[in-house]
């Protein structure tokens, strides 16, 4: 995405011709892929932003129960999102949805399938965490990030 936009700007200034369709490709492909394909890693690394305040005051045992509850909600919500966005993607597939840029048509229907795929991955990760939480088996997920040290705190975009 960085390269794509850089090339677009370079082409605009050097050749006086922007790359056709940059905006549409960036938002429909790059953004959707970045947003939804890395979603399951976010779930795996427990990087979803939540409000810690009240729960932190509760005993450790209750906190673990809450983690199980969060996994359960995650399974249900992302399971439903997977189904719903699959239906939506099929609608786009049926008409082979595209956007028109200048005189060319850019197909965007494939991008719609990224959403249910990404949601399904999250659903699976959450389901695994839920089963581990219920059975007390230690999760084999790597919730640590390699060598990123203190930057690794939820909500760091702020």
């Amino acid at each position, binding site marked *: 995405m960085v390269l794509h936009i850089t090339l677009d700007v370079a082409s*605009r200034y050097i050749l*006086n*011709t*922007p790359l056709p*369709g940059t*905006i*549409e490709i960036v938002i429909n492909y790059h953004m959707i892929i970045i947003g939804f394909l890395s979603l399951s890693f976010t779930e795996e690394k427990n990087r979803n932003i939540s409000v810690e305040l009240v729960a932190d005051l509760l005993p450790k045992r209750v906190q673990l129960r809450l983690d199980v509850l969060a996994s359960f909600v995650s399974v249900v919500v992302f399971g439903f999102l997977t189904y719903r966005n699959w239906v*939506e993607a099929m609608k*786009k597939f049926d*008409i*082979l*949805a*595209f*956007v*028109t*840029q*200048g*005189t060319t*048509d850019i197909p965007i229907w494939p991008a719609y399938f990224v959403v249910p795929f990404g949601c399904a991955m999250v659903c699976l990760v959450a389901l695994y965490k839920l089963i581990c939480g219920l059975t007390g088996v230690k999760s084999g997920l790597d919730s640590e990030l390699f060598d990123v040290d203190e930057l690794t705190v939820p909500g760091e975009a702020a």
Partner: protein
Amino acid sequence: TDIRYATGFAPGTTGANTAIATAEKLSELTNGAMKMEVFPQSLLSFGEMNAGVRDGIADAGFVLLPYFPAEFRNTGMIADLTMIFTLKNTGDRGGLAWTGALTEYIMLNCDACQAEMAAQNQVYTSTSATEYSLMCTKPLGTAEDLKGLKIRVAGANWSRWAQDVGATPVSLPQNELYEGLSQGIIDCTISGMTEINDAGLSDVLKAVMVDVPGGGFGGSAMMNINRDVWQSLSVDERMAYAKAATFAGAKLAWDYRVGNTKGRETAEAKGIDVVDADAALRAATEEWIHQDFDGIAKLYAEKYALKGTDESVATFMQIFEKWTGLVANVDGAEALSDLIWEQIGTKVDFNTYGM
């Protein structure tokens, strides 16, 4: 009955204010029995509008057909024909004529258009259109001036024209118009002159060319209503809704016409050149449009597998021609609304339309 109406226009804009006026109209037509709640930008954006009305998040909404070229292929082809403004020399009444013509074409003449509306679970009721002009940060007038310009376009017709005259068509979101022009990302935009005031373009523009390439925005389905909602209404309610929708299209078309006139006045007051093309460029453009129209029918037949495109284009041209005459002396939104209702609304059977 309460109707949830969504529009992608921000609160306070011409588009949103028209929707509010339409809600009052609907209430007045039904003695308060039908109410319309307007959600400007808060419920659905323009990009979400088609699916949003289809799935009933809103009961009705302002659907910009060219945003959904795959869903609305037949209607989209007609929306691609607005360069007819230039051929027919409709000046500042092209948008008014188009408003009547497209409504008549879709409601009375185009079964394929009706079918694609139905496939999106919607019922079409009205359109509003306006003329676009070429507005640049460089001087304009001749074919030579156009070479190498980066022109922001909002439709395929202008892209084809830009390429033909040696300019580069660029797409840019509407809200980056000012930024784009002031930062040289684009040299020109083809938009309504109303943007000179609305987007504050008067500081950055040098010249406006009114007649070439011309054309306008002709692909709005302003009051599309969810089909299930439509079918749940009584026949009187359906007729009242359609009447209010007619008013909406007429009012917005008229208000844009006023906005364009005001934009032109601002431009002239600020010393921006408001010009027509020279004779050579004008002739070349007309020649190009003729060829392009032949191409459009062929393009849509081949690329999008549409049938009878030549006849469709011919039928629409005839209807448009008729409407250029009908709107010649119209003097306001109410008059245009009455004219459209008399020409079209009274000929629609609301027992069966959209059922």
